[in-house]
């Protein structure tokens, strides 16, 4: 049995960094959300805890931890705990195939800033997204409460419906890239003109990107698709019986999902760690700084998408459930199919020329 222990250690450190970074970003997303809501509604938002209210997420976390942990008597205890854990795990697992930057050199060792460069990266993301439904369904059912169950089914059917449109919109993208590996997709985009900018996929797949964006909003249960957790008119949703940190996990998983789907959108459609108007290949001698620039560029794109998520949330009211299903099945799926056919035809035409 020969195991490359240095590789194991390297991946372990990378996983730890990615996990803690995701958690930290998700924490400050809650702060950002409240600040943006406040700005859009002409208020001040959190400003008591620390400068600009920056310690607010810590206070919120502490509050959630200190609250009483209630497990309903009639619930299925094991599954009741498993639900939020699954939601959290599915949210974190997606980050494994995302390329966070180029390659850095540590102690004469080339370290790729990606946990696993598998040749089925995009499909892996789909598998994890489709497993995320279980966290919701198991939690809703284990609560042993009719309203929780109905809300869980509502949430699960929404997720399944929009997964379909999401997958179809990505097929057109895969026609163009010819690879399922996330790193390969990013490198294809970096090869474009204007320092990679003209290679970005959203220039060639605007409709595909729009469908993916809408589906991502629905998958993250964000407004205007936040029926699964509509607290005022639909009885809060699948996490009605949850309290303390188990509720916190469900809410936190949503923010991590938001972060991860922003990363995926930036990676697939906006060039990933490609800095626009800057030719990376010409500055290969910059070494680790080049990788750092790439990671910063990726994070800037991600921040924009996170802002978009919040901007939309505080601007647009919620859909009705029939409107939601109508949009998913009767508009997005046919549009995605048409987009797929047109892209396929154009790709074939270009190849035959």
């Amino acid at each position, binding site marked *: 049995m020969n*195991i490359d222990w240095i590789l194991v250690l390297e991946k372990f450190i990378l996983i730890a960094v990615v996990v803690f970074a995701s958690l930290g970003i998700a924490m400050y997303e809650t702060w950002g959300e409240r600040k943006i809501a406040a700005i859009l509604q002409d208020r001040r938002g959190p400003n008591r805890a620390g400068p600009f209210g920056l310690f607010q997420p810590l206070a919120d976390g502490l509050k959630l931890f200190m609250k009483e942990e209630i497990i309903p008597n009639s619930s299925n205890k094991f599954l009741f705990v498993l639900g939020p854990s699954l939601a959290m795990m599915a949210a974190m697992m997606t980050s494994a195939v995302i390329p966070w930057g180029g390659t850095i050199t540590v102690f004469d060792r080339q370290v790729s800033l990606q946990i696993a460069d598998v040749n089925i990266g995009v499909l892996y993301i789909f598998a994890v997204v*489709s497993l995320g439904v279980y966290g919701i369904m198991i939690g809703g*059912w284990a609560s042993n409460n009719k309203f929780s*169950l109905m809300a869980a089914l509502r949430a699960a059917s929404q997720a399944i419906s929009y997964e379909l449109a999401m997958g179809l919109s990505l097929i057109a993208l895969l026609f163009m890239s010819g690879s399922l590996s996330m790193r390969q997709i990013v490198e294809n985009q970096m090869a474009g003109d204007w320092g990679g900018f003209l290679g970005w996929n959203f220039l060639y797949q605007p409709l595909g990107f729009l469908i993916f964006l809408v589906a991502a909003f629905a998958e993250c249960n964000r407004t205007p698709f936040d029926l699964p957790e509509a607290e005022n008119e639909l009885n809060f949703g699948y996490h009605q019986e949850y309290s303390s940190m188990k509720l916190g996990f469900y809410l936190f998983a949503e923010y991590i999902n938001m972060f991860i789907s922003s990363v995926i959108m930036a990676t697939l459609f906006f060039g990933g760690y490609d800095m626009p108007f800057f030719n990376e290949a010409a500055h290969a001698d910059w070494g680790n700084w080049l990788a750092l620039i790439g990671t910063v560029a990726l994070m800037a794109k991600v921040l924009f998408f996170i802002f978009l998520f919040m901007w939309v949330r505080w601007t647009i009211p919620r859909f009705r459930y029939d409107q939601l299903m109508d949009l998913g099945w009767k508009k997005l799926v046919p549009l995605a199919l048409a987009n797929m056919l047109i892209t396929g035809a154009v790709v074939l035409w270009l190849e035959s020329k």
Partner: protein
Amino acid sequence: MSLVEIIFWFLSGLALISAIMVLLSKNPVHSVLWLIAVFFAISGHYILLNAQFLAIVNLIVYAGAIMVLFLFVIMLMNQNAETEPRSKSTWIKLAGAIAGGCLLIVVVAAVRDSENLIQNIGGKAYAKTAVTTHGEIGLIENLGRVLFTQYVVPFEISSVLFLSAMVGAVVIGKKD
């Protein structure tokens, strides 16, 4: 024991225990969850055989889609011991035993037959059924090429079958 063997035995044990728990669980929801564990173990086996595409599609289709629908139905029906029909006739049990026995014979025959299939990779003889980390047929390029050239007619026919199933579901689901 090599690392691959350890993983193989772990996954096999997990698959068998989960499969037995599917049958033994009193609660149908638990059965479905154990079945999902079985799918995960089988996907692990696919990865051992270097068939990543099959592994992930197995998860997407079975664990991610079909089992969710199973859960939907079971959760809404809320089955438990009281609503379960008690009296299963002896004939049904007998028929079940015979059908299961036939399936067992087929499986044993297939396993027995596979011992004769030896292939040669890099001067070494491998049994054809278990080419860990060497096989390439499960990778997406090779699988796609085989499906769309050699087996294109069965592939298209099965897609027509799916279409008809979909139309049937829509017809049943329509009001009046």
